[in-house]
């Protein structure tokens, strides 16, 4: 499970924060927001801390530890903490992941420099996120995030294939557009040179093909029928 370090880092930051603000759970939600904004936790976790109650937080910690021990056997469906984690991955982290995919073959120094630019936070969560980007390939991370989102949200598997690598801005636009219809979607981008042009999308078992190879094969079909 490649997210163990990140989850552990988030827990560490949260617990540190709770320890610093021991009366945090007794405060009303409005006041909590002001205090949480001072932390450097990712936004989804800030929202989680705003909303969770003290007793529930302890139970959540138990579940999170159980998940770290044995991920396959722990049920995390629609759990607020894991909802926050998936929200982090599906939104802000995915943008950085898409940007990093352009540097897949770059030298180590260059990759480190880019990651440092993408994730400016220097706390343990920031370090864990940087490690994730540096030590795992785009495909590995995408598949792991999709698996986590499937387990948490029961989302629809979405894969987009392109004939060549596309720029991160377009990826961001595509993610944004698809999440407007379904916010649990985590689209995975893949290069398939056989498409020649256009793209192909697999969503929830349905394929929509806008590729040039489909058009060529359609033309061949028409030619063989003499139409």
């Amino acid at each position, binding site marked *: 499970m490649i997210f163990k370090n990140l989850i552990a880092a988030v827990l560490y930051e949260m617990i540190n924060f709770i320890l610093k603000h021991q009366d945090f759970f007794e405060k009303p939600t409005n006041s909590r927001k002001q205090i949480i904004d001072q932390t450097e936790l990712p936004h989804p976790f800030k929202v989680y801390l705003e909303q969770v109650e003290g007793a529930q937080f302890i139970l959540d910690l138990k579940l999170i530890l159980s998940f770290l021990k044995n991920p396959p056997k722990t049920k995390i469906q629609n759990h607020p903490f894991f909802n926050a984690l998936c929200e982090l991955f599906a939104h802000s982290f995915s943008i950085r992941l898409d940007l990093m995919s352009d540097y897949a073959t770059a030298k180590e120094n260059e990759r480190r420099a880019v990651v440092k630019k993408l994730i400016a936070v220097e706390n343990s969560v920031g370090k864990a996120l940087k490690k994730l980007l540096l030590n795992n390939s785009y495909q590995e991370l995408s598949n792991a995030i999709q698996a986590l989102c499937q387990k948490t949200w029961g989302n629809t598997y979405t894969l987009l294939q392109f*004939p060549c690598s596309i720029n991160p801005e*377009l990826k961001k636009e595509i993610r944004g557009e698809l999440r407007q219809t379904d916010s649990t979607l985590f689209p995975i981008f893949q290069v398939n040179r056989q498409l020649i*042009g256009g*793209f192909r999308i697999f969503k929830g078992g349905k394929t929509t093909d*806008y590729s040039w190879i489909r058009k060529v094969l359609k033309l061949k079909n028409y030619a*063989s029928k003499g139409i």
Partner: protein
Amino acid sequence: MADQFKQLGIDLWSIVLYMANTGVVLVILFYFLYKPILKTLDQRRKNIADSIEEANLLRNEFEKKLKKTEQEKEKTEQELRQEMVKMKKMIEEKRTELIEEMEIVRTDMLHKSQEEIDKRKKSLIKEVEQEITQTMTRIILDIVQNKVPETVVKESITDSWKEYKIKN
């Protein structure tokens, strides 16, 4: 007289003896030689006559049989001639029948050959069309895979994405 004969040297008793002797010889010859010989001769004559008669009978019979055989032969020949005529007629009929059948088979075979030729022609045309289609596809794929600039490919992605947004 007797003395004359004696002077001549002729003895009457010798003559009588010679005559009796001759007579005895004759009698003996007659009974022991001539009769058997005559009997034998008669027997032989009879045998010969019998043989001749038998031969005549055989000859007659043979002639009858020959005649009969010749009649039968003629009859058989006539029957054969009739059979030949019948056979010729039958052969002629069979020949006509066979020719008709052959003609039917020939027409049928020609018809089938023509069908086979047409079928083969269609199949060849189809094969050639398929080959042309495949070659066209290969050429098109080669061009679009290797000759199209990357900018055009990237433009196609953007255009397809716009099309997707409109339809969804």
